[in-house]
């Protein structure tokens, strides 16, 4: 390798980019907790194992929902499993989380959520009273979102083979708007918006485990986003490029997916990202970046430049988007990277999440 130090550094960085662009490969012999973190290891597992096995045009975009055509209708289809611990936490429980999560995966693909299924894996000894509490909260969440839980399944496993109660929901929604959304649709000049303060769900769960001896007045942000999405799409039809709910891996992971799939750079202002003081404080203490902490009722929205004002107004006019903020913009260079202008006035990149700072948050 020749040239000045800076040239040589550039050459190394280009080589790393080439390696990162290679086909994903799972190097581990066993599943580790990192495979479930929602970050880079999860993505590798999905691409190298699941996509490899099931490859088809509906799956390949790896969006939150698959889009399939049935007759003349376009349907969105999604599924998600919930293993959160503890099952009950401030602001929600595994039940409303399971409904809202699936409703949100359908909503951000632009679909109107219609029907849900619910599968339960129950551990021997799990209190029936708790199960009633979970199902009541699911029913309430479904009513709020305007969807029906129309089919289900129950399995019971021996004590010790599961942790109380796991829930899997699947959902179907109707794509009855002309909007075509996708992570690959971001273009230079677009604006990036988040719909509210980030990281509340993740930090709430972490504190609810009681292992940290930190107390904060925080509740999970779990909420159904279909109403907020409809308001946004009504206000700027054609202006919205993509939406994602920022669950595991947080806003940073979503932005990386967008930058990578669209071949663009996303430049974020740290100062503009809404984070409540309690979340910021807990993250400072624990050495975690709120950008990576999960939300269950917030989304990242990319809109074209001219629609930014209308989109922000529309989001802020809805009860779930009152604290929406423009946090960044899309540029052409450097493609595939998320850059952060820090509060301190410096710059750095924001990578995909590695490892597992928050086990079992959803």
């Amino acid at each position, binding site marked *: 390798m020749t040239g000045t130090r800076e040239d040589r550094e550039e050459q190394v960085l280009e*080589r*790393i980019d080439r390696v990162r662009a290679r086909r994903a490969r799972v190097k581990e012999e066993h599943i580790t907790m990192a495979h479930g973190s929602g970050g880079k290891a999860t993505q590798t597992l999905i691409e190298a194992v699941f996509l490899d096995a099931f490859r088809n045009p509906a799956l390949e975009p790896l969006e939150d929902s698959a889009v399939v055509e049935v007759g003349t209708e376009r349907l969105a289809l999604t599924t998600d499993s919930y293993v959160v611990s503890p099952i009950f936490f401030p602001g929600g429980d595994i039940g409303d989380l399971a409904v809202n999560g699936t409703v949100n995966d359908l909503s951000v693909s632009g679909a109107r959520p219609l029907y849900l299924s619910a599968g339960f894996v129950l551990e021997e000894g799990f209190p029936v009273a708790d199960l009633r509490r979970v199902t009541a909260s699911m029913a309430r969440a479904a009513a709020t979102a305007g969807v029906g839980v129309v089919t289900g399944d129950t399995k019971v496993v021996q004590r010790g083979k599961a942790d109380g109660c796991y829930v899997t929901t699947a959902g179907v929604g109707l794509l009855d708007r002309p909007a075509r959304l996708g992570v690959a649709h971001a273009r230079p000049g677009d604006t990036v918006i988040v719909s509210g303060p980030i990281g509340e769900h993740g930090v709430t769960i972490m504190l609810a485990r009681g292992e*940290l001896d930190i107390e904060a007045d925080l509740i999970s942000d779990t909420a159904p986003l279909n109403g907020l999405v409809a308001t946004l799409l009504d206000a700027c039809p054609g202006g919205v490029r993509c939406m994602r709910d920022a669950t595991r891996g947080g806003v940073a992971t979503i932005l990386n997916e967008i930058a990578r799939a669209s071949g663009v750079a996303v430049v974020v202002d740290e100062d503009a990202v809404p984070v409540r003081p309690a979340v910021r404080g807990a993250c*400072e203490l624990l050495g975690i970046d709120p950008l990576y902490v999960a939300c269950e009722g917030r989304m990242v929205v990319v809109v074209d430049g001219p629609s930014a004002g209308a989109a922000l107004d529309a989001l802020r006019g809805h009860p779930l988007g009152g604290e929406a903020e423009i946090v960044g913009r899309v540029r052409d260079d*450097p493609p595939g990277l998320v850059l952060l202008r820090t509060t301190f006035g410096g*710059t750095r990149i924001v990578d995909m999440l590695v490892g597992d700072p928050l086990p079992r948050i959803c």
Partner: protein
Amino acid sequence: MRFVDEYRDADKARALSARIAELCEPGRSYKFMEVCGGHTHTIYKHGLEDYLPESITLVHGPGCPVCVIPMGRVDDAIHIAGQPDVLMTSFGDMMRVPGGRGSFFDSTAQGADIRMVYSPLDALKIARREPDRQVVFMAIGFETTAPSTAMTVLRAAAEGVTNFSIFCNHVTIIPAIKAILDSPDLRLDGFIGPGHVSTVIGCRPYEFIAREYGKPLVVAGFEPLDILQSIYLLLRQLAEGRSEVENQYSRVVPWEGNPKALRVISEVMELRPYFEWRGLGFISHSALRVRPKYAAHDAEQIFEIPGGRVADPKACQCGEVLKGVLKPWECKVFGTACTPETPIGTCMVSSEGACAAYYNFGRFSRKRVREATR
């Protein structure tokens, strides 16, 4: 947020940056080592290098507790964790450190019971809850974490918790700095001294660096303005021809350190004759072990330890990175074979490791990033 925002003020940073530029002699280049991994993390996380002139290079030192653990010790810990009825506990960033036969995470995937804790006291709590199992705490870190480990041993002894022990890997910072000063391949102009370690050992132990080696050292806090101000103080010493120990972090670090914490360490632990440091090799009197008086809480006495030495993978250049001879990106495997997901070297594991910090935050041409964020 109080106690945070005032140390991240961009206006103050710009002002300091201008004064730093003024102090730099034209045509001279400066190399400062930040000893502590916490500083490395701050520098990258906040993009601090954007405020420095090109003539200043920051060299990332060995002060990352996880980064200096040799592979053999990881294997020993995994061996202990594999014994019947053993429950191993560890800080989170130790979980992914690779030994010769995989990491803690790999062991848990294969059935070992290794749990993450936030403090050794949490490990003691587990020991009280599970009296039928031997609960071992993987003790790592410099003088910063040694007092809490020692306190926990004292508490276990006082309460008669017989199923709690520590696998002691505590190291001391001064011998490592001395090894770097004596290393022929590196020329440094000064040190940004570790803040947290100094809360315990104080500033006096660094005086030989200024006196005998003629290098200035400024003990620094962990916010970006702390570090920027420390660089300013180093440059001012150089400009005035001084080499002294200064304390930028006086809001936390007392000049004499914390005698109580030091007493607790020396009650429970004693210096080992020598200890292996990843990348730096064997350094004499550079680590701590449990005193015989507390052998009942010393995993090295309770279990048979294989104690094998595992040579670092050939391709890995952690040693050169830890000594600051190589920048992370100059290592042959950086970012290609060695990444935070599949680290070969320890510098890529901990968020405080120089390689991980560079990979996660700085892995792009600063010029192009600056261009794009303008």
